[in-house]
């Protein structure tokens, strides 16, 4: 773009992340409409994401990190010169000299030259095999040197040093980190946090040497090791220096601009240097004499300068130096006044060396305000805590609950302590304030009329919260309950519009009155004709108490489709079939039968995570034929469809395993056969491991049994799924009989008192007193319920009948398994299959943007 009158020219020196941001802001905010902009970058490629440098090893090429993938700005007023250095700055002539010999005049000049790695002046630092960690070229060189090398050492245990160590680990080198300070990340972490981080980092195979200086780099022409103060040696063929950075202010110094005492172009709040036409941003700048080594403050400075050039009054007044990152897979966060430098500041610390957790809160002397904190091992609270520092809101009365893990006195959701701006649903960016506003004020609904959100379902519908991955539904629910409780309104635990009772209350009502049908229950305690929430709940309660066939009498119409057809419905309306294989143990003959059935009916087969074989793609009318063959071969229903016991997984145990101390297979079979068919508020899984190696992963189950030299340890309340939980020890070293007794009590207590679709882990958390309370009920029998719970389980065990055998013997029940009531021989044309990896898969239909709920539905 040329015009007759020359336009003012803005020259930007440096095309790193901050220089790029400045040009972007200039284009977006219209500065390029009045100015020509020339950007000079010395690297051979446009700006890239230096923060994510280590991910370059996993990337397909440099383009993947690029911030300007097209290689040029799409504004003709912006010119980008790459591979070009600015060699001199002449303030009198207002020109810069370029390495290609050109001289470029400027009206405004922005220095965005960044920083250079600091290499401590130790002997041998120039040997081949010594590197810094700053550019893609550095990484390419490190990668080339790592090829023949076996070990590498990083000098510097700060943020960048650990990043570099991660890179060396990824390159397959035995990796060392040497840090002069007594701990890792000395700028962000205190001693205890640093120690916790060391344990994590060492757990990943990195050897950490803290509190020790580097004496020299050894080697003849190439590096062969590092000599530490005191004479110790670390053998390494690659040395990476990452001992801090220094502002690149040489150009400014040579031109006579004022610089800060510790380096960096001294600039005012508008980022203007001592020369009014020259500005500096990012790591080469020192606003108020202080240099900021993070990208976010640099971005802020870039915006401020563009604003100033447009005549705005934006100011840079310091930055939040909070950091949260994953270093070598370890969560680390440091925010606010992490070192408690504020006068009178108090520290609250939670530390669990075994779990590798360290959490510290720094609070004001009156305990009312959060000033800062440090999190290592689990930084999930960062999203809640950092806004509390920024907004200065009052802390809750028991601030330690913010960092204690749930179940150890920590609030499971902690919703009351969340600041309004805390993000509750990260999938749809919904904050606590958004949700509360919807609860407080009426909003127009899809029909145009004004609606109040009164419950979780309505909130989900109108804000989107909880509608994507579902993992925040528990938080949303707690928020709704808290909100209405605070208003003095009773929080409804009603099951649905037809029943004002909770599931536990409904269970008691049915037990006390001895009801046998939904009609009786709804007539006496409900309204209307029920729905897809209360009908299956009542059916499950009836099954737990009476244990009659789920498809008997009027019960079939109460069941969700899986229970109604005793199989698992799949996306195209076909079903999967899972025969029970107790404990995962199966004879070759039975294995062959499953194979033959699958082959003859053209089913897709897959081994499940619960040690079962899942047969997919059965049409509804095929289910009885398939089950006839399976039942004849000795199989029975695996209940994979029901909210009931699914599997008890086991390892091979002492019969085969050289480490096993008990027969885990026999115990798993016994437990699976005992609890098979037990209808419960949610599906149930168990596991039995024959020794502490835990090959059955029993602690991820609702009940986990782990063999000890003396008997069995019983763990409860574990689950996988959207909100995983590790099972916790209820009782140890039990004999077989006591184990079963405690399990009977635990399972029956859960079946009676849990909410609809509440798994054992949240149920356990919801019990007042948690695990201790459960132990009182199950082990100490303080409620005197023990014998009653055992009797209920004994009744279940005695009345168990295989559901599929019963269906096959009953023409009335079989009548429902047809494609069409008026054309039972015609397969439904809507169900069809294609082939992938030599097996069938559903052909369409395709989900049309449907959201599949996970976790506990509201």
């Amino acid at each position, binding site marked *: 773009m040329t015009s007759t009158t020359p336009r003012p020219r803005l020259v930007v020196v440096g095309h790193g992340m901050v220089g790029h941001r400045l040009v972007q802001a200039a284009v977006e905010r219209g500065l390029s409409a009045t100015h020509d902009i020339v950007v000079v970058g010395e690297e051979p490629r446009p700006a890239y994401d230096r923060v994510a440098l280590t991910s370059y090893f996993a990337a397909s090429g440099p383009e993947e990190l690029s911030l300007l993938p097209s290689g040029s700005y799409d504004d003709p007023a912006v010119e980008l010169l790459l591979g070009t250095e600015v060699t001199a700055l002449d303030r009198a002539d207002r020109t810069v000299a370029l390495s290609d010999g050109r001289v470029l005049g400027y009206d405004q000049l922005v220095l965005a030259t960044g920083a250079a790695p600091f290499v401590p002046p130790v002997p041998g630092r120039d040997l081949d095999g010594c590197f810094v960690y700053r550019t893609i070229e550095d990484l390419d060189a490190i990668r080339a040197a790592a090829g023949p090398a076996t070990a590498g050492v990083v000098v510097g245990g700060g943020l960048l040093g650990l990043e570099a160590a991660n890179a060396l680990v990824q390159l397959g080198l035995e990796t060392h980190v040497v840090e002069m300070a007594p701990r890792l990340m000395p700028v962000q972490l205190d001693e205890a946090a640093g120690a916790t981080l060391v344990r994590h980092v060492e757990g990943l195979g990195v050897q950490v040497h803290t509190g020790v200086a580097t004496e020299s780099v050894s080697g003849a022409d190439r590096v062969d090791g590092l000599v530490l103060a005191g004479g110790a040696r670390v053998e390494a063929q690659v040395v990476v220096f990452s001992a801090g950075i220094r502002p690149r202010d040489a150009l400014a110094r040579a031109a006579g601009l004022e610089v800060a005492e510790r380096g960096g172009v001294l600039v005012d709040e508008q980022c203007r240097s001592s020369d009014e036409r020259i500005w500096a941003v990012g790591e080469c700048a020192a606003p108020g004499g202080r240099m900021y080594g993070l990208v976010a403050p640099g971005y802020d400075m870039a915006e401020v300068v563009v604003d100033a050039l447009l005549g705005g009054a934006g100011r840079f007044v310091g930055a939040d130096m909070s950091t949260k990152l994953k270093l070598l897979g370890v969560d680390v966060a440091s925010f606010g006044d992490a070192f408690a430098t504020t006068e009178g500041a108090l520290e609250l610390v939670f530390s669990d060396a075994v779990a590798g957790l360290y959490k510290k809160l720094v609070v004001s002397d009156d305990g009312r305000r959060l000033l800062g904190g440090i999190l290592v091992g689990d930084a999930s609270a960062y999203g809640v805590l950092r806004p509390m520092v920024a907004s200065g809101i009052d802390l809750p009365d028991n601030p330690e609950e913010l960092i204690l893990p749930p179940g150890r006195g920590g609030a499971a959701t902690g919703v009351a302590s969340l600041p309004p701006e805390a993000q509750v649903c990260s999938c749809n960016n919904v904050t606590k304030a958004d949700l509360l506003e919807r609860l407080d004020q009426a909003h127009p609904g*899809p029909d145009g009329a004004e609606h109040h959100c009164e419950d979780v379902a309505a909130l989900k519908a109108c804000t989107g919260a909880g509608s994507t991955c579902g993992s925040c539904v528990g938080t949303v629910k707690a928020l709704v309950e808290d909100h209405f409780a605070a208003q003095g309104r009773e929080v409804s635990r009603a099951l649905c519009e037809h029943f004002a009772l909770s599931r536990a209350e409904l269970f008691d009502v049915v037990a006390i009155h001895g009801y046998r049908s939904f009609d009786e229950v709804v007539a006496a305690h409900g309204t209307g004709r*029920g*729905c897809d929430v209360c009908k299956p709940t009542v059916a499950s309660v009836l099954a737990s108490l009476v244990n009659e066939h789920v498809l008997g009498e009027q019960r*079939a119409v109460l069941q969700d489709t899986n229970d109604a057809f005793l199989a698992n419905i799949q996306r195209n*309306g076909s079903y999967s079939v899972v025969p029970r294989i107790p404990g995962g143990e199966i004879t070759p003959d039975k294995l062959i039968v499953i194979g033959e059935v699958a082959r003859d009916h053209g089913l897709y087969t897959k081994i499940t995570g619960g040690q079962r074989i899942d047969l997919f793609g059965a049409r509804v009318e095929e289910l009885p034929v398939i089950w006839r063959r399976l039942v004849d071969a000795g199989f029975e229903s695996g209940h994979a469809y029901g909210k009931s016991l699914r599997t008890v997984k086991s390892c091979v145990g002492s019969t085969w395993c050289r480490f096993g101390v008990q027969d885990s297979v026999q115990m798993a079979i016994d437990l699976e056969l005992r609890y098979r068919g037990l209808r419960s508020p949610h599906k149930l899984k168990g596991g039995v491991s024959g020794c502490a190696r835990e090959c059955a992963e029993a602690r991820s189950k609702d009940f986990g049994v782990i063999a000890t030299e003396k008997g069995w340890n019983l763990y409860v309340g574990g689950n996988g799924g959207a909100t995983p939980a590790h099972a916790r020890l209820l009782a140890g070293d039990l004999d077989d009989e006591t184990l079963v007794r405690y399990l009977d009590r635990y399972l029956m207590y859960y079946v009676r008192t849990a909410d609809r679709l509440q798994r054992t882990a949240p149920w356990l958390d919801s019990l007042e007193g948690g695990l201790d309370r459960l132990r009182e009920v199950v082990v100490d029998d303080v409620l005197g319920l023990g014998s009653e719970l055992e009797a209920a389980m004994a009744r279940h065990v005695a009345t168990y009948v295989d559901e599929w055998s019963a269906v096959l013997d009953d023409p009335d029940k079989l*009548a429902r398994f047809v494609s*069409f*009531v008026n054309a039972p021989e015609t397969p439904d044309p809507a169900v069809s299959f294609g082939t992938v990896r030599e097996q069938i898969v559903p052909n369409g239909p395709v989900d*049309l943007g449907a959201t599949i709920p996970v976790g506990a539905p509201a």
Partner: protein
Amino acid sequence: MTTSTSTSTSTSTSAGPDELLWVPVCPLDALAREAGVPALVRGEAVAVFRTHDDQVHALSNIDPVTGASVLSRGIIGTRGDEVFVASPLHKEHYALRDGRCLDDPTLRVAAYDTRVVDGEVQVGGRRPECPQ
């Protein structure tokens, strides 16, 4: 077309042009209260439902969200006075009366005329979408 979706009193079998549309499905006795069955009606999968008060309704069996032929396998319930079937896949609720989705006004399934003649359930023509 009438707004009444079913009748258990009609005994008219006189052949008119519309009469040819009626397809016999099954005896009313074969249909459990508050349950659905799939039927093949002129080559299409149709879900036929019987309510607690013996009204008979018919909707397309195809769940409009997933395209799967499954609505006859949903649970029947009530929301206020509205009788619905909940899709067994993702639990959207469709009014048996006219196929409107009670959760999302942009969704609807086709509804069919039904009647019971001499104890036999029959499905007639697909009804035009009635205005909201």
